[in-house]
């Protein structure tokens, strides 16, 4: 009888440890902070990607200018936001026969939220939809609108004040973007800087 009770106790303890571990690795919601103080009200972040490319196996599309406008706020201590504008300019492909005739974000705003995975902060952008109109008579998708859809998870670096989207950040957050019904790779480094009330203030997430 005593053995049974001991075994049950051990199992419960193990369960508690497991729960604690999972609680740490799952999303403990962080908040937006300026100069280490939680953001009150809303703020607008504007910026441009340092580099950004999207790859469907065999075709990479790059944009020299990948700008964004993100409105952020904290709700019940959790950082949230909305991507309201994503102008994309000077986009090209690595194919000699495919051009980018038109590219644009669709169905804006895209809701976003902050989360942590194993104590590392990430930003999750949901409802991403970008339409790319490729051109070129010899291009396999010439005169075809290719739509990129899905959810994107990016690593937030408090030191460099950037959000980095790559295969590691997508894997860590369990997110993915799709085009031509297959997973695509999106790489992008996005600086985050306040444009409204907190200009030139250090932005962090914790």
């Amino acid at each position: 009888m005593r053995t049974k009770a001991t075994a049950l106790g051990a199992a419960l303890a193990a369960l508690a440890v497991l729960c604690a571990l999972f609680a740490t690795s799952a999303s403990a919601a962080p908040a937006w902070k300026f100069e280490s103080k939680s953001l009150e009200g809303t703020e607008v972040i504007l910026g441009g990607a340092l580099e950004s490319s999207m790859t469907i196996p065999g075709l990479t599309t790059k944009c020299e200018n990948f700008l964004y406008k993100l409105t952020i706020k904290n709700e019940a201590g959790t950082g949230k936001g909305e991507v309201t504008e994503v102008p994309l300019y000077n986009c090209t492909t690595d194919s000699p026969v495919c051009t980018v005739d038109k590219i644009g974000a669709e169905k804006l705003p895209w809701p976003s939220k902050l989360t942590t995975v194993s104590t590392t902060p990430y930003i999750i952008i949901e409802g991403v939809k970008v339409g790319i109109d490729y051109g070129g008579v010899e291009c396999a998708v010439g005169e075809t609108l290719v739509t990129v859809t899905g959810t994107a998870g990016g690593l937030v670096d408090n030191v460099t004040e950037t959000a980095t989207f790559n295969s590691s950040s997508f894997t860590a957050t369990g997110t993915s973007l799709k085009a031509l019904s297959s997973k695509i790779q999106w790489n992008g480094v996005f600086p985050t800087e306040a444009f409204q009330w907190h200009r030139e203030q250090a932005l962090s997430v914790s």
Partner: protein
Amino acid sequence: MHKYRARVVCSAMLVVALTALSLAGTAQAKLTGAFTRFAQCPYKNTEVRKCIQSVTESGEVVLGSKKVPIVSPVTLQGGAGPVDEITEMSKFYAATNGVTLSKTPQNVPGGLLGIVPDASSPPLVKALIKFFLENSLTGVNSTLELAKTASDISISEFRIAAEEGVGLKIPVKVHLENPFLGKNCYVGSSTSPITWNMTSATTAPPAPNKAISGFGGEGEFLEEARIVVLKNNKIVDNAWSAPAPTGCGGILSFLVTPIIKAQLGTTSAGYNTAILKGTVSSSPAASVKKNDEEHP
């Protein structure tokens, strides 16, 4: 004089031989690399915009109560015209070798007794079946054939990739083959075809069938994005109806055809399914033509 004539004849023969060789050279496409899959595309036809090759590697066709798994690859190949603004689909163009849809036989599980059971057959049919059984001629093949011309097929590779709406509309007939069944045992015909409206999205069939989903496939570009390939593509339709079989059993058709009809059971919409899994490749006709011209 004789010597001169002989020389003229020899020269003429040489010219004919060289002309024949050069004609043979121009008739044969010299496609290279991944473009070789479009060897039968009518890319020289100025109305053709894209070259298409779709290879079904697996799947199944359920006709009433009979399920035939697809185990031997079936190829659909040819060209696609400009996209129609109303239907958003493109007219299909026949393969240059005439084999737009390959006639690939698939084994019917249960064989002859599966579609003409001994027990429920009249004595004459029973005696014939016995003969075929004794001579090991029990295997039955089911071959999918085009019921109309290639131009009656319409395709939208964009819809297939985007998992939206009907991506392939194709009129087919099923040829049931066994010496006992004769040469003309078909389900579907050119006047009464089975029309498949294949989709990579989700179907909405009448009962008792339930919704099933396709898959656009995993996109990949080849030849510097001149070819797009959708691997593991899955297109489905389970809302089609099929007419009754015809012409089965040769001169005993009046006896055999009703038996097969009974064995298939209800073949109205809601009782049939087509699931085609494979690889879809497409390339602009301009790219294929250029590849051909670069390798004369």
